[in-house]
């Protein structure tokens, strides 16, 4: 019983850390904060387009929260949110799913499983003068979440069938 209570407490603390980061900066006038929760089905169909599998997966999302900061990369606010984010990722049991860099643009995707098969996906994009933090939560596996960002669900297969004849 005590162990269960402790696990629940730890899980709640982790959620609060990410939650508190969003809450803190959503109040800050330098940030743009957007949250979508209700009517995710409607939004899912818009985003996934004609991709049936994508629609199904998007419908499993419960909420999307976005924090955007348009400022210089080396500004104090940019530094402080980056430091706080690093701590959240470190203490929040997030695992790195994707890390991509392209001409000064960076995308980091982190993933973690929470209670009752719920999962959190944290997307961090860093560009010249913009920093965005996207928090997606829902009942989705890592593969399902990644499908949302794949190119029509294409995967890499070195030994394709039917080509070795």
């Amino acid at each position, binding site marked *: 019983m005590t162990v269960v209570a402790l696990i629940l407490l730890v899980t709640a603390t982790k959620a609060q850390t990410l939650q508190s980061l969003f809450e803190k900066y959503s109040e800050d006038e330098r940030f743009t904060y957007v*949250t979508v929760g209700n009517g995710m089905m409607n*939004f899912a169909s818009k985003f996934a387009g004609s991709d049936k599998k994508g629609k199904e997966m998007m419908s499993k999302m419960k909420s999307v929260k976005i924090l955007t900061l348009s400022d210089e990369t080396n500004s104090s606010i940019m530094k402080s949110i980056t430091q706080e984010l690093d701590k959240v990722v470190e203490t929040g049991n997030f695992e790195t799913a994707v890390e*991509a860099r392209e001409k000064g643009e960076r995308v980091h995707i982190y993933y973690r499983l929470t209670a009752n098969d719920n999962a959190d996906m944290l997307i961090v*994009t860093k560009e010249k003068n913009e920093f965005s933090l996207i928090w997606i939560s829902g009942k989705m596996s890592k593969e399902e979440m990644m499908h949302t960002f794949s190119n029509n669900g294409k995967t890499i297969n070195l030994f394709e069938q039917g080509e070795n004849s």
Partner: protein
Amino acid sequence: MEIMNELLEKYFRGETSVDEETELKQYFKSGNVSSELKIYSSLFEVFDSEINEKANKPLIKVIQNQRKQKRIWIRTFAYTGIAASLTLLLFLKFPFQVDNYAVVSGNKIEDTEFAEKYVEKKLNHVKDMLNKSMTPMNDSFENLRKDLRPMNKLINVKVKMDELQNLIQIKK
């Protein structure tokens, strides 16, 4: 810039005229936006992109659908009532914790469409960034796959050789 600040304040209070809103849109479209006001650019970009959206279905089809809907209106009325009651009950029991809204420079914009458009735009941007950075890797894998084709043939030859060897052993 002060004029634009005043106009923006008026805009968020919902007191701007059509002309003033046009002036604001033109200002943000001009690309010559002061750094302090740049944060509002995305707001006006979204409104601009909405203008370019076209209807998915021809108007005639929509009208026909509406007529059909009228015919089954009475039948569906009861179901809708039940569904609405259930939704209300669910809402009362489990009030939604997350709403659809945006906060731009401290101003709360309770507009679901705007919030959804913003999220859609951001997610598409991430998708584009990922696809762009993954392209060289995908190309490399494609080349590697091509280079490995002769290997696939070799694997087939090895399988045939094993079969032949088994046959020889059986005959012996």
